[in-house]
């Protein structure tokens, strides 16, 4: 997996682009960011193993698949009033997460149970090593560029409005 910073920023950047294209609401940026962390809920197993030496890695692994993540997104969306919209946005976040993870490389040729429970095939494109910091660096730079662009546009709007 790339780090969580790359995951949440990639999702936020996608939502920002959608805001510009379709005039979506910026209040949903944190929702898509949460969605981008859902597949890594399987990492709770790692935490449990480190803290209590309880190994439930295989049990939690389906969370890192399309259908497992969507089910968890479904549960989370029930804690919101507009469940259907929240569910859709969470799924977009899941999409960015799994797309980024597909770029990673592992010695086995693939470690993502993408289509579980219909297939146990593991997929990955083997393009970037998991400890590579470029995904984080690129997303941080893009996020800064978007913030700067928005500041400049707002400033231009304000100055043209006041003159």
């Amino acid at each position, binding site marked *: 997996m790339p780090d969580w*910073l790359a995951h949440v920023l990639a999702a936020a950047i996608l939502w920002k682009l959608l805001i510009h294209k379709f005039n979506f609401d910026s209040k949903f940026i944190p929702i898509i960011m949460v969605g981008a962390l859902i597949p890594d809920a399987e990492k709770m197993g790692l935490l449990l193993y480190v803290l209590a030496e309880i190994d439930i890695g295989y049990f939690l692994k389906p969370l890192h698949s399309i259908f497992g993540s969507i089910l968890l997104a479904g549960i989370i969306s029930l804690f919101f*009033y507009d469940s259907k919209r929240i569910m859709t946005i969470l799924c977009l976040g899941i999409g960015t997460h799994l797309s980024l993870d597909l770029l990673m490389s*592992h010695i086995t040729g693939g470690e993502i149970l993408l289509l579980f429970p219909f297939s146990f095939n593991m997929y990955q494109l083997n393009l970037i090593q*998991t400890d590579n910091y470029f995904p984080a660096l690129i997303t941080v730079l893009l996020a800064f560029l978007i913030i700067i662009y928005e500041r400049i546009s707002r400033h231009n709007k304000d100055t043209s409005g006041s003159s």
Partner: protein
Amino acid sequence: MNRFLIGVFFFLILIMFGIYNSLEYDKHRKYPPLSDAISEPSAYADKKMVIMGYEVKDVQDNSFIVEIANQQVTIVNAPTVNVGDRVEVLGTLKPDYQFLAEKTIVSTKWNHYLIYIRSIIAIPLVLFLFFRKWRFDFNYLRFRESE
């Protein structure tokens, strides 16, 4: 009530996914992990296996040592690594817990730690942005927009 039932339904499917994967995963994996062979190495002799994300404990000439289930395993035909690096190795098990590496991916100690550091940074960022826009309504057990 409807919401509760849907939640329970999704949760039960997730539990079933977990149980199904726990029972079936080993049958479908491409290569068994070396940890499976530690108690009975002869059963896995010359079989292609993997070591996933173990820490390098010691480095020797053209080989290094990792510890798997309290057993030291010597990886031979290995690239240059340093103590503390994390490795993924594909290879075959030889006698005396020697593992002949065919392919190795090395993550240096600091690059490995930096993954966790970058990940930890994301948590307060998401929490800050989330609770700036949303707050939890304890009466209805749902998040609503902050005014």
